[in-house]
């Protein structure tokens, strides 16, 4: 486990940059904030001994998904949103709903006994968690894995169809 | 009207590209190797070695003013070079030759003759246009200076580069 200081550091990094995604007007700045947020999240994953998931998080999100986002933002040449008149009521409503949701979850967590416990120590080394996840994936979750594969294939076909310009 | 260039049909070996790439790499490596062994050394080590001796006759280096066999500055400040100069590098201020002078008949001489060598493009038009055969492109090419002002060749400098020109048309003899 990592020290509380590092935990809070990465947690705050995740949250602050996550909030920056929503607050920033410039889509490029939003995308970059999201990258930083994901890097913090990845560090949190690693603090939970989930090295594989952590690195996949960086590889897939920071390395591929966000580059795709940036590519699209630049391809469409999206400029910073102009300062539209903010609908105060709607905004307050949105924030209010989000806060209510947060309070609900927080209360639920507070009532949850296990939440107050620390993480139990691991008796075995997790350094080979790639092998373990692989084993779980291909032994216990083989069918879902195949289904996800089909889903990705369908998504690929869909993307190709969607982004194809109709020949004139 | 665009021209469509037909692309050659490639067979499968050519379409693999690898042989071509390997061949290309082999060629460049051969050059690398030869150079490493000092076989194909074509670069001239400039400041130590110079190709002055092999400069062609038509080489266009720094423009310069010449004197004739009598030691007179051939230029009569007609300002045609100033007019023709494409980058406007030449600046002439004409002066009048005093009537006591041996060449008073010439009447005019360049009081100032500046060529801004930062501007000069060595096109040779000044040489071509000069009616008095007074300006020539010499073979000097290493024209350097630390300041802009240093790069302006004044009359003295131009005459120093130019020297004396023999065997050109002598216009200012008595006959004319």
């Amino acid at each position, binding site marked *: 486990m990592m020290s509380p200081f590092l935990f809070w550091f990465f947690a705050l990094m995740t949250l602050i940059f996550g909030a920056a995604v929503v607050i920033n007007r410039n889509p*490029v700045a939003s995308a970059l904030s999201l990258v930083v947020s994901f890097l913090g999240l990845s560090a949190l994953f690693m603090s939970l001994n989930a090295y594989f998931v952590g690195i996949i998080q960086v590889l897939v999100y920071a390395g591929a998904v966000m580059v*795709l986002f940036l590519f699209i933002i630049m*391809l469409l040449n999206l400029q910073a949103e102009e300062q539209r008149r903010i609908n105060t009521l709607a905004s307050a409503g949105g924030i209010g709903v989000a806060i209510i949701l947060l309070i609900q979850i927080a209360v639920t967590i507070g009532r949850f006994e296990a939440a107050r416990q620390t993480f139990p120590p691991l008796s075995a080394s997790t*350094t080979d968690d790639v092998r373990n996840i692989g084993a779980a994936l291909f032994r216990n979750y083989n069918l879902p894995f195949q289904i996800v594969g089909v889903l990705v294939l369908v998504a690929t076909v869909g993307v190709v169809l969607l982004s194809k310009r109709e020949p004139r | 009207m665009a021209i469509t260039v037909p692309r050659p049909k490639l067979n499968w070996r050519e379409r693999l590209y690898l042989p071509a790439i390997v061949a290309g790499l082999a060629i*460049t490596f051969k050059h690398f190797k030869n*150079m490493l062994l000092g076989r194909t050394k074509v670069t001239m080590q400039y400041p130590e070695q110079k190709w002055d001796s092999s400069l062609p006759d038509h080489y266009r280096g720094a423009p310069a003013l010449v004197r004739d066999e009598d030691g007179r500055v051939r230029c009569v400040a007609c300002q045609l070079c100033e007019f023709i100069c494409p980058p406007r590098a030449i600046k002439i201020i004409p002066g009048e030759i005093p009537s006591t002078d041996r060449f008073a008949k010439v009447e005019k001489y360049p009081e100032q003759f500046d060529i801004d060598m930062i501007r000069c493009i060595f096109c040779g038009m000044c040489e071509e246009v000069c009616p008095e055969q007074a300006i020539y492109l010499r073979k000097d090419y290493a024209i350097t200076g630390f300041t802009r002002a240093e790069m302006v060749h004044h009359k003295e400098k131009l005459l120093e580069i130019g020297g004396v020109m023999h065997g050109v048309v002598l216009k200012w003899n008595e006959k004319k």
Partner: protein
Amino acid sequence: MDFAFVVTSLLKIVGILVVILTMVSYAVYAERRVSAFIQDRLGPNRVGPAGVFQPVADMFKLLLKEDFTPRAANTFYYWLAPCLAVMPAIITIAVVPFGSTLFGVPMVIADVNIGILFVFAIASLGVYGIVIGGWASNSKYPFLGGIRSSAQMLSYELSLGLAVIPVFLLVGNLRLTSVVRYQIEHGWFILPFVGDWTNPWKWLLAVPMIISFLVFMIAMFAETNRLPFDLPEAEQELAGGYNTEYSSMKFALYFLGEYAAMITGSAIIVTLFFGGWHFPGIPDGSHGWIFGLINIAVFFTKVSLMIFIFMWVRWTLPRFRYDQLMRLGWLFFFEIALVNIFVVAAILAYAGI
């Protein structure tokens, strides 16, 4: 965490940083010399004997140049981008084993179990430096360079990842030290039959491994923006691409990033396919510190040779067109790497290597 670990790690970090930065500056010098030699020229040969102090002169020149920020640029991102370009390339080297052991200390900064994934994850962040640099310059050619770069990275990262899967099928572990150890025992992956000459399966295995190596190397060219895939900075089309508006040290950082990425890429190729620090007949560091040093030397010699190949290719092949690059990445390398995985898997299944 014990004290000795921290100290040795710090020493290793400082050591490798110094070596990498020196190598970067000398890679620039080497690039100029190699390109000159290939073109029958001499290259820089004035500063010091045979021009070896040229990088120092270059460094001073770049440091002293005017640092210019375009007025229309997005200043914060404009300054951030060059740093983003350098960092990933240097961080990546942390997981690469550059030697066996020295005084019992393993010669790798972080021997993580997800080594190759770490490499890919961090290397893929390198694109941000270029994309943001191109975008923040607020100028059309850098912008085009940035867009090209992002598309190019996405296209080639897939091939890059798929190409190394055969290696890890054989090793059964993502740890890079395991890869090296496996190669010491079973022969380098580029020549898997070495030491086991009579096994026909090993000879058969050589074919997919060479394909794997070629795809990986070519994808690495694209990943490091080296010719023939230097579209983001194509001088002839984009006037320098993403770094057009950069000057002075910020430009130098981009340069540094490119060469650091090239060195890291070479180090990874050497580790994955050429046995890392191993050379047949030379024992590892446990037989004495002198051998440990020799191992490190072997590793860097291999890396240097790889860098030479990078340069050699650069000065031989012309640049790809953008559509050709995309077609090559998606319609050729992707497929061939995929098929390659199945071929290796089949060989493994039937031959039981």
